């Protein structure tokens, strides 16, 4: 797996990441389509995910539970917007309360996944993640732009670097 591009567009609040996989499109699609595979990568190893519902049809939902190191549970959901297997999946991703009901006070993210056949049998997967219409999130992407931050932020970086992360 190689991450080929990372783009952050503050205008549309979109983070786009492309990666190259040495596997055919149909195989890469399974990591989304098979809940047992999905839960192996969705959460970080310290917050493993358990996928509960998994209905990848338009209007369908996926619900999951992430369990933290202290046994703390965090629930989330997807609402499937569009599916064109094995090339495209679009869904809204949100937070849920302990009972699994969508938490509407926290913003949601829209995620668009596209899989592209590559010469030689590989796959390029593009993930487009659009942040909610919150100024804070817009700034978050803006600040991370690879094109470089302003001189002022550059100075801040320099000040921070000697002190480590």
């Amino acid at each position, binding site marked *: 797996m190689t991450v080929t591009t990372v783009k952050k567009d503050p205008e549309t609040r979109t983070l786009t990441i492309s990666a190259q996989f040495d596997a055919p499109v149909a195989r890469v699609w399974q990591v989304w389509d098979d809940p047992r595979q999905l839960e192996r990568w969705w*959460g970080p190893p310290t917050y493993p995910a358990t996928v509960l519902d998994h209905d990848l049809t338009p209007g369908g939902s996926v619900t999951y539970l992430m369990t933290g190191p202290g046994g703390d549970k965090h629930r989330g959901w997807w609402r499937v917007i569009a599916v064109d297997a094995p090339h495209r999946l679009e869904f809204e991703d949100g937070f849920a309360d302990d009972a699994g009901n969508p938490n509407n006070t926290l913003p949601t993210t829209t995620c668009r996944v596209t899989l592209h056949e590559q010469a030689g049998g590989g796959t390029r997967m593009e993930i487009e993640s659009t942040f909610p219409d919150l100024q804070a999130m817009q*700034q978050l992407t803006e600040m991370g732009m690879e094109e470089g931050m302003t001189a002022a932020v550059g100075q801040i970086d320099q*000040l921070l670097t000697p002190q480590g992360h």
Partner: protein
Amino acid sequence: MVLVAVRLTYNSMVVGSVDAERADQVFHALADATRRDIVAVVLAGEQSVSELARRYPMSFAAVQKHVVVLERAGLVTKRREGREQRVGGNIDTLREAHHLLNQLEAIWRQRLDRIGAILADPPEA
């Protein structure tokens, strides 16, 4: 979800002491070029609000407002010295903001890494 994962990571694993609402304030505060400049200036050395006001083509009141936004976000601290208000930088908050930014991209990179590992596994595994 990316945002939630960032918040989870941010709240539970990386920062601990700063909540998500505070993070929003930090990013809002740093959204403005003048405010970013003020932060850089006061990190290099404390300044009075009047000294800061002389640096920018705007009123004392406007600069004062920027300082209030930065103060609320925990990016600068203000203290009174005689008739002056002295503004200093708070590097801890900046380091936390820095962490959050790096987390955002890292989460997707880590997910893609894990997908790569799954794809490299034999199907039976």
